[in-house]
């Protein structure tokens, strides 16, 4: 089996490289969009708490929709291909970002916020200089789980015609070629692991340089 997988990698290296790059692009774009939307939304509801239960509630409900059905539901709206795939991945990715950003920003000690305000910080300065840096490790944890999830879920996107390593998986399934399915899966897992490793390094580095708890 292993030999069959490596034979595939060797013989079709161009194709796998192409799929790997496409997968990185698909997920990279989704991570970027979901990250920005999640961060902004999380900050907004942390600053205006009365909206928090509604926004988090909606995110939670959306999160429970099975990915395969969300992809299917998007076809009548956006057709097939990368566009609905990226949309679906973003919808999933927003949830952990919103939740962690909200938790991180809203749990900064009130004493510190008051000190910052009392010394003459504007609301904006309190956010940028105190709240966000202190929430950074929680936000990074959210980013990590979001990235890993998007890279993994990105495999299913091939089902609605998106590019990426899912193409190899689905081709393997339809052609009873288990080696090909495995070959695609292994690369997705490797990509997720590498991304997680890089982010955990960044997290550790931040904690070390800032002597954070």
């Amino acid at each position, binding site marked *: 089996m292993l030999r069959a997988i490596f034979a595939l990698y060797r013989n079709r290296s161009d194709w796998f490289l192409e799929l790997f790059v496409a997968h990185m692009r698909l997920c990279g774009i989704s991570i970027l969009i979901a990250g920005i939307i999640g961060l902004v939304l999380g900050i907004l509801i942390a600053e205006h708490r009365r909206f928090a239960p509604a926004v988090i509630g909606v995110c939670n409900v959306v999160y429970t929709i099975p990915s395969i059905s969300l992809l299917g539901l998007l076809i009548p709206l956006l057709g097939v291909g990368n566009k609905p795939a990226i949309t679906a991945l973003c919808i999933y990715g927003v949830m952990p970002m919103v939740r962690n950003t909200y938790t991180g920003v809203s749990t900064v000690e009130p*004493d510190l916020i008051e*000190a*910052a305000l*009392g*010394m003459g*910080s504007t609301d904006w300065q309190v956010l940028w200089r105190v709240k966000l840096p*202190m929430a950074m490790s929680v936000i990074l944890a959210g980013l990590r789980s979001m990235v890993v999830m998007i890279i993994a879920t990105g495999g299913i996107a091939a089902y609605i015609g998106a590019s990426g390593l899912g193409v190899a998986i689905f081709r393997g399934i339809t052609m009873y070629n288990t080696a090909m399915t495995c070959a695609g899966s292994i690369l997705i897992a490797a990509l997720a692991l590498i991304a997680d490793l890089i982010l955990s390094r960044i997290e550790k580095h931040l904690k070390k340089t*800032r*002597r954070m*708890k």
Partner: protein
Amino acid sequence: MTIWPDLACCKMPEPIIRFNDVTKIYPGSPPVLDHLSFTVERGEFLTVIGRSGCGKTTMLKMINGLLLPDSGTVEVEGVNVSGTDLIALRRSIGYVIQNVGLFYHMTVGKNIAYVPSLSRAWDKPTRTRRVAELLDIVGLPRNFADRYPSELSGGQRQRVGIARALALEPAIMLMDEPFGAVDEITRRSLQDELCRLQQTLKVTIIFITHDIREALKLGHRVMVMDAGQVVQLDTPDRICSDPKDHFVRLLLGLD
């Protein structure tokens, strides 16, 4: 055209802080501040003492506009706090709170330079120089600038908190039980240091405490508060020799 000199410097010495009949009420409970009136002179060290919930912290937060009165006025340097630029006001007033409130993601140096950084008042060389000077003033070694608050003892953090409040040489410093969380010996040395600082810098200090000994030791005048009102405002000697009522005597441990 005659250019008049700045009028402020020609006027009679006026109180630096004035509370005029200030009331603050939160719905559903008795007033936190109940028609409170008093003044603080320039260069004075005023200690404020009273039970928890007597309104002393509320009073303090009205001086830098973190809270605004429901009725009455608070004037700082002759200007009504309710109608002024609160950000500018707060940057001109030193603020030290109970649990120090040092930002643990910043070095000691960055903490000390926090207020100047808000208005970009210091360039980099000024920052290095002033941080070193301020560390000298509060009696900490200069190499502490690169450390993080988590690496400091409680007393050292308090000193950093004071240095941070002094960064832009404020005329007023507000301190809300700053020495509440340190041990007795450290507290005594911090008190002595603060007295010395106050005398050399001539800064006006409003200092809230729970500890009557601390209030009597540090204050030029002591303000005893209860239920949102001033019970007695007098020199430590007069407070001790002539306590106004049962509450003050209780505080002094006489009854």
